[in-house]
């Protein structure tokens, strides 16, 4: 039993840890515990102390007065008994003398070491100091100061003063003049007890011969394993750690890591002062069992239309932090949903879309910085589609922007980027003294996409506003009143390739507006559609989803969206512009192409690879069955040289060890309604 355990049983729970007790310890805490248990009336037979010096003289006197036998430079060498301790042999450290005690409890500790884990994770380097018996920092990262038990201090006054010194040193590193206070604190520290001597590796006469001389109690790493490790060439602590698993448990550097370093030094016959412990990695504080036993709550976002979608039979899937409807039937191809959008009208819950307000005198400058397009062209009553790139020219977000007032804009982002959009703006304008404010309205408003050739007729039934093509043309923006007085922002867009109106409505009114549209849409055969149908529809139109048809090897230009880039704008310092300039004429870059598979025994799948002989020359981003072409189609990222329209490319699908190849024909990505007449109808 460890010292603290015996102490806690007696002091906290009033349970006698044993009737006849022997201690084998390595520090003054062990002496204190032995005395305390004896004073509680327990029978402490003997105390073996691995140290030969540095003991607290007062404690030794008290032990003598209590009649407890004290053996300095001794340790437990063997224990007898199986289910219960029957006796303990204590030996001196060179094995010349042994004494046996009949007892039912051995209380053992290996002494103390400095708490260096936090410093080690911060990058400090340590070496064993023979003078103090501690692993001490030989090299500290800049502006890192340590105090207390990290430095081996145990006296409360010394710990307090070391904290004062470390704080003052930190202040001095920040150019504060604290020299007088620092000098006074150092003088005070000099009068206080210094570091408590650490405990050497207790290596009794039996150690190494038996099987259970533990170096690491967490992972049952023994001295014998360390010897085996060294004999097979794993002869330094970091290698032995991997050989025997020493220090891989929660103890890490403390007992296991430091014991291992000392043990390897002994096994190799190398000077202990050259030994270094093993690397400490977070977490420093182990996970508690209580945490593991706790419930795992499924906390996710629901859209304001969640209940409507559920009532209509929506099958939900996780989409980032949101739970969204993927399908409205068990038909995973969603052909009825797709057909209804192409022929009649469908309703999509797009509420997870990021929505933001940006305002202030420098709002336009901020928009110019983060969007690749010329945002000065953003007008009231119009939607402007644009994209954001990162520093390497990869597209990271897209959406529409409209001006809602003087220096006041409303813009959308992809669902996945909504959570970091404000930070993105702030980060990329951090050196500018610009006055603009951002508000995240993502949850504030739901979004209903009314899409299909009958979309206008449906929407017209719930609003008195003029929705004609002249009054509200493609890419227009208008604020409407729907139903009995609900305000809605209407964006005429076309992500799914059909006449579409996107209504952004206050989240609390969203359910009401959906019900209104649903009721009004019955005469137009309105049906809901989910994310999967949307994915098929937009892919036919060649509209990309960021992260699906783009990745870190391709830029905005490579996926055919270079038309968005205001190339001549060198004033706004647009994010990604230097990278786009650098690669705009670069040969050999991957490109996004469309493809169709006329006939194949293999059903193409997302992720299939494009091959040329044995070389991989691209991969399929998205592929589905096209309702309009009645065959498989999709988009692929391919190497330069495989992008010619009409060219046949080979694709390969790996199914376990089987590899099935099929042929596809390169087509433009936006093959459905290439002139976008359906969007402008």
């Amino acid at each position: 039993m460890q010292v603290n355990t015996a102490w806690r049983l007696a002091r906290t729970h009033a349970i006698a840890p044993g009737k006849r007790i022997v201690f084998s310890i390595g520090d003054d805490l062990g002496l204190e515990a032995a005395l305390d248990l004896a004073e509680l009336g327990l029978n402490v037979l003997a105390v073996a102390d691995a140290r030969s010096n540095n003991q607290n003289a007062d404690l030794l006197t008290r032990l003598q007065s209590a009649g407890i036998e004290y053996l300095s430079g001794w340790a437990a060498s063997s224990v007898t008994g199986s289910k219960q301790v029957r006796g303990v042999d204590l030996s001196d450290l060179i094995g010349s003398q042994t004494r046996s005690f009949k007892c039912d409890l051995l209380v053992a500790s290996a002494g103390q070491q400095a708490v260096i884990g936090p410093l080690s994770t911060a990058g400090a380097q340590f070496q064993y100091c023979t003078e103090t018996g501690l692993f001490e920092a030989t090299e500290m990262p800049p502006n890192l100061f340590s105090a207390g038990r990290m430095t081996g201090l145990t006296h409360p006054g010394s710990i307090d003063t070391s904290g004062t010194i470390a704080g003052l040193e930190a202040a001095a590193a920040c150019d504060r003049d604290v020299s007088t206070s620092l000098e006074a604190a150092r003088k005070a520290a000099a009068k206080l007890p210094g570091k408590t001597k650490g405990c050497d590796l207790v290596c009794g006469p039996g150690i190494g011969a038996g099987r259970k001389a533990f170096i690491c109690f967490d992972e049952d790493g023994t001295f014998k394993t360390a010897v085996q490790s060294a004999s097979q060439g794993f002869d330094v602590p970091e290698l032995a750690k991997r050989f025997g698993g020493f220090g891989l448990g929660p103890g890490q550097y403390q007992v296991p890591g430091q014991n291992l370093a000392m043990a390897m030094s002994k096994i190799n016959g190398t000077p202990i002062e050259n030994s270094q412990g093993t690397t400490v990695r977070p977490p420093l504080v182990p996970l508690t069992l209580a945490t593991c036993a706790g419930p795992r709550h499924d906390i996710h976002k629901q859209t304001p239309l969640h209940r409507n979608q559920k009532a209509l039979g929506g099958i939900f899937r996780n989409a980032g932090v949101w739970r969204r409807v993927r399908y409205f039937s068990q038909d995973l191809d969603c052909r009825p949903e797709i057909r209804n959008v192409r022929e009649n009208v469908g309703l999509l819950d797009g509420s997870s879309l990021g929505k933001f307000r940006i305002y202030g005198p420098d709002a336009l400058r901020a928009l110019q910085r983060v969007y690749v397009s010329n945002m000065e062209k953003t007008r009231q009553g119009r939607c402007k589609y644009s994209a954001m790139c990162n520093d390497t020219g990869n597209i990271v977000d897209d959406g529409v922007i409209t001006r809602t007032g003087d220096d006041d804009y409303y813009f959308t982002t992809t669902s996945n980027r909504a959570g970091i959009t404000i930070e993105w703006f702030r980060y990329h304008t951090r050196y500018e003294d610009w006055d603009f404010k951002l508000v995240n309205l993502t949850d504030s408003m739901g979004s209903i996409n009314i899409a299909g050739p009958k979309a206008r007729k449906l929407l017209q039934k719930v609003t008195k506003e003029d929705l004609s093509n002249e009054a509200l043309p493609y890419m227009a923006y208008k604020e409407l009143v729907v139903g009995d007085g609900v305000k809605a922002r209407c964006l005429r867009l076309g992500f799914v390739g059909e006449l579409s109106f996107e209504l952004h409505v206050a989240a609390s009114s969203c359910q009401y507006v959906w019900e209104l549209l649903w009721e009004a849409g019955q005469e137009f055969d309105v049906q809901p559609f989910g994310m999967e149908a949307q994915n098929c529809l937009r892919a036919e139109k060649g509209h990309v989803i960021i992260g699906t048809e783009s990745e870190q090897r391709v830029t905005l230009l490579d996926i055919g969206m270079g038309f968005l880039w205001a190339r001549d704008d060198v004033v706004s310092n647009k994010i990604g512009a230097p990278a786009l300039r650098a690669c705009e004429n670069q040969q050999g870059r991957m490109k996004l192409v469309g493809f169709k598979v006329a006939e194949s025994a293999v059903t193409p799948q997302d992720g299939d690879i494009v091959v040329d002989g044995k070389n991989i020359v691209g991969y399929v981003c998205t592929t589905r069955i096209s309702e309009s072409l009645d065959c498989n189609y999709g988009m692929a990222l391919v190497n330069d040289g495989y992008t010619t329209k009409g060219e046949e490319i080979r694709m390969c699908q790996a199914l376990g060890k089987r590899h099935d190849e099929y042929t596809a024909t390169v087509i433009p990505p936006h093959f459905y309604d290439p002139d976008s007449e359906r969007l402008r109808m």
Partner: protein
Amino acid sequence: MNAVYRQGPLTFDCEVAEKIIHDGWEVVLSFEDESDGPWLVDLCHLQRWDYQHTDLDSQKPFGLDVPAEPGQVLLQDQKLITRMNRTQAAIWKLTRGDAIKTPEAVNFTDLTDAHCMLAVLGQEAARVMEHVSNLDLLRPGKQAPFLTQGPVMHIPCQIVTADVDCVLMTFSRGYGQSFADAMLHAASGCKLRPGGEDLFGRWLSGVGDA
């Protein structure tokens, strides 16, 4: 045509004793078997605004003083105003009353629908919060009310420790239902149960400044 109504982000699965319709919202005033608490009260229908200004110290939105430091909260005229950072404050109207029209000034943004607002009420309020967050919501040296911005059950929240018996939280509306369900489950050991708006009204009427 159906009458306009407004729907909050969450419902509690227990029997309603009394409810009213306020400004289109169905507000539960009390549930059957509310017992002695602690209670989780849905306050999503109360109006909230974001207010941003470069010189925030000089501003008086709705005639209210803005707290001098981030993290400070003032309760004035039955409205609670919290300062989040150098330029941004949040204003929560703590009573139903007549709906306030959002002022024309550009600095206001109505966020009533953006957030879910919950109150944990009762003598065990602080203990309930310890089941769901490691934030120190009763830290010594802080005079209630004060604002803490941090995670509750991993969800970013603004939390106002109104007093030891009342903790108010706002967070993204979409999390409302699953957050409330998880909270009731996590704090079931403290006997946390849904409470009606009347409980919050009673707490508010006992606060001097309100």
